[in-house]
């Protein structure tokens, strides 16, 4: 209905519980991931990707700035691509993506699992998955 005016309450009247916080986090982390991906693509172009990488490889690096993503390209010296700076950038992207993704899975599960007990199990599993995937991802990023 185009005629209805959207009603919005200020945050102080709405209250900020955990679900509201995660609702906001989902949107802000999406913007954060956009920023990191654009930053990684610009970084790749700055490091000479224009001459040494195809468009697809630049995107592959952009979506996760990990050095293994440039090893199969024509980049001659991968040292600038595996500095702690890029590993930190990749870690930030990984942590944002895992938190965003696992919360998304919980939201989907909540549509189908309605009992209190079931939802508790979903939340427990999601915390386990979030912690393990973050640790495994960080291990891969910092040892590759």
């Amino acid at each position, binding site marked *: 209905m185009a005629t209805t005016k959207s009603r919005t309450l200020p945050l102080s009247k709405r209250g900020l519980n955990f679900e509201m916080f995660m609702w906001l986090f989902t949107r802000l982390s999406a913007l954060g991931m956009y920023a990191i991906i654009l930053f990684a693509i610009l970084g790749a172009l700055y490091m000479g990707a224009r001459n040494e990488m195809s468009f697809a490889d630049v995107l592959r690096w952009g979506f996760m700035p990990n050095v293994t993503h440039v090893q199969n390209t024509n980049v001659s010296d991968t040292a600038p691509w595996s500095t702690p700076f890029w590993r930190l950038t990749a870690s930030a992207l990984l942590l944002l993506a895992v938190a965003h993704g696992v919360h998304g899975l919980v939201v989907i599960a909540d549509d189908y699992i309605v009992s209190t*007990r079931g939802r508790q199990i979903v939340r427990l599993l999601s915390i386990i998955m979030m912690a393990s995937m973050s640790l495994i991802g960080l291990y891969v990023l910092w040892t590759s």
Partner: protein
Amino acid sequence: MGLKRNVSLATALRYKGQGPMLTFVLHRIGGLGMAIFITMHILASFVGGKTGAFLNNFYENWLFQIFIFFCVLFHAINGLRITIVDLFPRLIPHEREAIWVEWAVFIPLFAIAVFVIIRTAGG
């Protein structure tokens, strides 16, 4: 636990949610697809060896690349639309127009990507 729908599956499939419903479904498929396959990709890099190589070969197959890029690109563009509209609630009445803009951005970008993937696969 379990599915508790008040309508039959046939009725659910006949639900005409149109554009917004389609983006909702594709956003879910994209999100689930990424969650499953990127988890798999991280685990493959972690395990390494023969299993890791097998999983990563599957991941690098051009058909699979088209599928996963659809998931990533649609989820990203639709997510940006949701973010903008939700953070600026004044825009909510223009949701359907926003979805048209979204398709106008998505279709050319995805077409270029599919073209590049197929050309790279063709050698």
